[in-house]
């Protein structure tokens, strides 16, 4: 409390409180109530002089309080000041609002308030607020004589989080890969717990439950995956996503819709004819390869190219739509080196070409005898026998090769008799049909010819096609009159070469 000495002014003081000392009497004891008033006429002159007859303490400012219902731009800021005064003086307040540390508005209360009671002294309407602004309320109290110090309190206007980046991957979605969503959430408010929310849709229908994941502010994060088991080829995928900071969510966004692409069939692995086979002899090869795989489980067909060129350009065979894992060359290939490759098709597209393999188709002569000996049994002098009646059976020669063959024959001597040596009618041969048109009849030895130890042509152009590749070789033997009665044998050789 203060006591004023007024000079030339009528003064009435009312003592309101205990423990005060009356200046005029010096009395310090007893309870006093001082009721006084100061009348200061308009024309008053002189000095208003303070002196502390009693200690008047300055009010003590309590930390102001800023209240916002939401801490966001949608709510007004209510500024509260509160000061205590030991002297129990009523206080008035001076206040200042700062935005981002720059003065914005200030004022003072027009009335005094009871000390120690928080008073709403100045508000900022929501319209003046911007996200992220720092509002500071500074208050000073006055007890009529003394001021408190200024004291501040600040409040940040909260920002909702923002999704600053979103990306789905992979760019081309196949049925064997999950579809992933990455988000980057930014929030200027320190300490907020940021959460992302994702709902995937397959062909417009929600797929599974909503995914939520806490993320780090400003960090690109894989927030949710749509499992490849959830979709199929041709499905349209999209993701709805948003983020929140516990108090406010972003708006919901949709990721760019993607259509699940067709997965290409796997690369074909060739198996036959073996690569670099330089002795390949099958003129109608059965090309084989391993089954291609397709993650979409599409039905696969194959395309084969067979060419004379190492890069398989200008193919001689270009067959598509093969449903098996093999292809049989429909007509005989000519002798050459062939290059071939295969790829699978899933009806949408082709997979990767297989490696290029090659084989060299070479002519081969291969001759087969169905029996290797003819036994005429014991023969008497002058006896004649031959194989034309199949008793005994003639030799049968089959061309097992892949090209036409000529066959010649020679033999060691059969008889001991000097008159029945080789190159005589005692031991003869001829060719005969076993299958029609198996060999060139006119240029073959189809009548009896004398056997020799020098090779003689017997069959010309023996076919190699299975239906007519067989010929008979008849043998005729005659026992000379002077042939001794012993076992006789001859070794005969059929030699085959390319026609």
């Amino acid at each position: 409390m203060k006591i004023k000495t007024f000079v030339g002014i009528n003064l009435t003081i009312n003592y309101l409180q205990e423990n005060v000392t009356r200046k005029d009497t010096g009395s310090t004891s007893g309870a006093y109530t001082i009721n006084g008033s100061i009348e200061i006429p308009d024309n008053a002159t002189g000095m208003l002089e303070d002196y502390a007859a009693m200690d008047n303490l300055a009010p003590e400012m309590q930390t102001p309080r800023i209240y916002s219902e939401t801490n966001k731009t949608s709510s007004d800021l209510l500024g509260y000041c509160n000061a205590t005064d030991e002297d129990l003086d009523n206080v008035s307040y001076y206040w200042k609002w700062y935005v981002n540390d720059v003065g914005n508005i200030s004022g003072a209360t027009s009335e005094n308030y009871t000390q120690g009671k928080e008073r709403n002294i100045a508000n900022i309407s929501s319209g003046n607020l911007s996200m992220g602004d720092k509002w500071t309320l500074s208050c000073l109290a006055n007890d009529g004589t003394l001021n408190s110090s200024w004291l501040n309190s600040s409040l940040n206007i909260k920002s909702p989080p923002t999704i600053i980046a979103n990306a789905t991957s992979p760019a081309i979605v196949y049925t064997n890969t999950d579809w992933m969503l990455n988000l980057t959430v930014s929030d200027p408010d320190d300490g907020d717990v940021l959460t992302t929310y994702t709902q995937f849709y397959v062909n417009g229908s929600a797929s599974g439950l909503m995914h939520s994941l806490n993320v780090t502010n400003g960090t690109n994060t894989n927030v949710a995956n749509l499992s490849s088991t959830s979709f199929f080829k041709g499905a349209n995928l999209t993701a709805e996503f948003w983020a929140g900071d516990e108090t406010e969510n972003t708006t919901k966004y949709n990721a760019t819709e993607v259509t699940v692409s067709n997965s290409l069939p796997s690369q074909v692995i060739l198996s036959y004819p073996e690569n670099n086979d330089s002795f390949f002899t099958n003129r109608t090869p059965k090309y084989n390869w391993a089954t291609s795989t397709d993650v979409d489980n599409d039905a696969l067909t194959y395309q084969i190219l067979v060419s004379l060129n190492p890069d398989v350009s200008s193919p001689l065979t270009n067959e598509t739509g093969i449903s098996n894992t093999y292809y049989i060359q429909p007509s005989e290939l000519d002798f050459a080196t062939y290059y071939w490759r295969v790829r699978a098709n899933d009806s949408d597209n082709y997979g990767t070409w297989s490696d290029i393999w090659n084989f060299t188709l070479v002519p081969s002569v291969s001759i087969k005898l169905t029996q290797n000996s003819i036994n005429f049994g014991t023969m008497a002098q002058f006896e004649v026998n031959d194989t034309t009646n199949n008793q005994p059976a003639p030799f049968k020669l089959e061309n097992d090769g892949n090209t036409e063959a000529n066959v010649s024959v020679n033999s060691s001597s059969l008889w001991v008799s000097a008159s029945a040596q080789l190159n005589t009618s005692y031991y003869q041969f001829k060719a005969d049909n076993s299958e029609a048109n198996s060999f060139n009849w006119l240029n073959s030895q189809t009548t009896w010819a004398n056997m020799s130890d020098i090779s003689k042509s017997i069959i010309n152009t023996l076919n190699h096609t299975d239906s007519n590749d067989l010929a008979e070789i008849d043998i005729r033997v005659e026992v000379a009159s002077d042939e001794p009665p012993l076992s006789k044998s001859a070794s005969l050789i059929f030699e085959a070469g390319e026609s």
Partner: protein
Amino acid sequence: MKLKPILLIIVIIILANQTYALGIAPSHSDVIFEPGLEKTIQLKVINNDYKNFDAVVYAERALAEYITIENPTISLSKDQDSKIISYKLNLPKSLEKQGLHEASIVVREIPKETKGGTTITASLAVASKLNVMVPYNGKYAEIKLFVTNFKQNQESNFAVEVINLGTENILEAYAIINIYDPLNNKLAATTSNKVQINSKDKEILIAKWTPEIGLGNYHAVATLMYDGLNTKDEKPFTIGIFELDIASISVNNFKLGGIAKFDILVENNWNEEIPNVFAETSVKDDKEKVYTQFKTASADIPAFGSQELNAYWDTAKVIPGSYKLDIVLNYLGQKTEKIFDIMVEYDKITASLVGKAIAVEEEEKPAVLKSIYILIFLVVILVIFNIFIYFKKVRK
């Protein structure tokens, strides 16, 4: 007496497997002469029947003196399907004549012992030719035409392999391919790309062609034009797949209980007449019960023409309903099968195609597998035979 057929089977099987085979690949090798050329050439001796045998290898004919056989005797065992042998060629500095010079490399089986009586035992020999071509003075080319299985209205390629066997380079070579029908009428022509071919080099010419003619057998004649000279090669080829088609089936004037006459219209889309075509038909119900089987008369179907084959079905005990008509066309060793759904009503039979089935090819089996199968079969027969003998003895 009952034993005879079994023994006969056994003998037949044993005899059937008594084959002797020998092969060689390649059956010729081509070399363009270069003075002093040294080259090792490999050959594959083929033991198709998986037999044990020994053989001698030797060279003969004009160039034999320039050939060294690395292993003059070889042995193959029943486990080996083939054996690679090689010979060295050391050509002289010159060969007098231009053109072809030859040698033969012969692989000759060493014969086994002969049997008693008057016996002639055969053994086999196979020869691989060595063709050494001394380039001709000037320009000279040889060609080989490669054809493919063309498809109607689908572009494909003829290929012409050209070898410059002259001493001079060929500045420009291209091939004209003329296409002829079986009556030798020229139907189309196509021309290849043009190339330059150095002496002793080989080039592949490609002539694209899209067949816009009917399916069938044709032949192509390739004429190589090179620096004012030409040479030819020709090959037969086909367009499409040779297959007769059943165009339609109809039954006219039908009354249930009477004889149904199926008119089977067979279409020949091939460019040649198909002789002796007949159909085997059978009518079945869903439970595969056969109601009738019929073989039609044979007919010749003209090129690009059609012909009706008639099959008959006595419907005296047939009740109205749906049946399956299986038709197998037989022609030139081929078969085409089609199955029709037929609906038998009181006054009509209607048919619609169910599907198409073509005889499935038998998978190729290696010779060794065939031998194993034969052996297994033989063992089974012998076991049965022994059991039979055993029971016969027990009974006695």
